[in-house]
């Protein structure tokens, strides 16, 4: 969650509330409404790489139920998704395919690095065949730590990502940094 703390919200969220509410729907621009809607309906890509994906699937079942937040629509086609949950170990062999899937997604698209493997290589930090974190080649929006993170942690990540998506201006600087690595290192 460090990435969220470091950034300084300009007109951004206060106590989890979005800027749509105080300004009023009528006065706000179309873009604000669109962003608000985007932040409320993430459709994740049906896509898992390793053990973390099992936990992602558990998030969809009866006990945790990702559908409460409207994200149960796991689309199989990257064209129709908004969110790529990099759930698991990204091996060097898989890296080009992950990147291609990301490029096939339609804008606006978001990436969540789920689990310590996708964040930094995790238990395979010194491995010759594992990519040391998804952010070495993708613009990752949010990190969910854990090995594996529990479904609750995944939900918390989703809710944090909401704030980020609803207030893109507040995070603009951060995006520039993120985009530096995009498509490199492989």
């Amino acid at each position, binding site marked *: 969650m460090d990435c969220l703390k470091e950034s300084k919200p300009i007109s951004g969220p206060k106590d989890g509330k979005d800027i749509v509410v105080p300004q009023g729907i009528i006065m706000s621009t179309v873009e604000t409404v669109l962003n608000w809607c*985007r932040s409320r309906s993430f459709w994740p890509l049906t896509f898992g790489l390793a053990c973390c994906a099992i936990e992602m699937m558990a998030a969809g079942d*009866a006990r945790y139920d990702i559908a*409460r937040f409207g994200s149960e629509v796991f689309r199989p086609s990257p*064209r*129709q998704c908004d969110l790529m949950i990099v759930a698991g170990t990204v091996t060097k062999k898989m890296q080009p395919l992950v990147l291609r899937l990301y490029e096939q997604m*339609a804008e606006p698209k978001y990436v969540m690095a789920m689990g310590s493997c996708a964040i930094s290589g995790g238990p395979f930090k010194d491995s010759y065949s594992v990519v040391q974190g998804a952010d070495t080649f993708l613009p990752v929006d949010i990190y969910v730590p854990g090995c594996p993170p529990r479904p609750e942690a995944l939900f918390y990540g989703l809710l944090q990502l909401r704030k980020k998506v609803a207030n893109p201006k507040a995070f603009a600087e951060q995006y520039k940094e993120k985009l530096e690595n995009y498509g490199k290192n492989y």
Partner: protein
Amino acid sequence: MDIFLVWVDIFRNWLTGGIGIPTLAAEIFIKIILVLIVIIFVLCNLIVLVWLERKFSAFYAMRLGPNRLGPAGFFQLPVDIVKCWGKEDTIPEAVDLPVFKIASICSFITAIMAWAVIPLGKGLVLEDLNIGIFYFIAIGSTGTIAFIMAGFGSNNKYSLLGGMRTAAQMISYEIPMAFSLLGVIMLAGSLNLSDINEAQKNVWFVFPQIIAFLCYFISSIAEPNRGPLDLSEGEQELVAGYFLEYSGIRYALFMVAEYTHLVAVSAIAAIMFLGGWNPLFGLTFIPGFVWMMLKIYFMIFLFMWVRWTFPRVRIESLMHFGWKVLIPVSLLNILLTGVGYYVFQAITG
């Protein structure tokens, strides 16, 4: 619902008499407004339907379903639609551009065209065609073209396979569907949907035509490509089927077409088998429109129940079932109906 027709009459009189517009122009104007009303009605249904679908799927899986936006998550779908609106419209380089672009619109148009003949109450119909049910079946089959267009136009092997599967499935299930409706038409002695409805004043056709109803029910699951017969979008083998390359609002149009088709198919089932706007238990103080909506939603409930309880079948078992079971059974039903009708007439003289 007579009050609705009275309003239309008052409006027509005001247009021709009050303002002095020529009769033909006034008629065209009124028709356009009525068409818009029907489209809006269908789209409103859609919001309720998708909400119901998500809630039902949650219920059958012992989950809660969307519950954060609005009462019981009712506003989840509007938010999703707005999001789809704002999404990038990806058009891959290799697609056949005109076909790719038209396909999604085509699928929606063919789905909405069926609504021209479907009555929702006494006189509540855009065009009371005397061959209404024939028109419905004919328009239903033209929907196939849109799916083949999407499959071919995307220039993607999975899309193509999905499109071809849809075509095969829709064509082979079109036949038992038409045959099963034939039994009802024989009993009612008319192709006009309002007349068929009137013929069920005493007994609903679901009782003498129970075989036909089952045949119709199964083939109308396959027709709008719904689970468990939604092989055209089988994720495990075809990724997403014919709309694989579509994103944003074009993809949403395909979904809208699917649900529009579903409502139309349920409405036809309600009119042909469940007595349309004839009241149950002689409760005539409830308007016919309400009865009609109740029956449509009962059918939709059955469709959703089936969708979320059965696993998807394989393609060849689907085809075998269609050609080797459904078609003979529905043909047999026609024979039985004919013989039964003849015997009935001979007895009653």
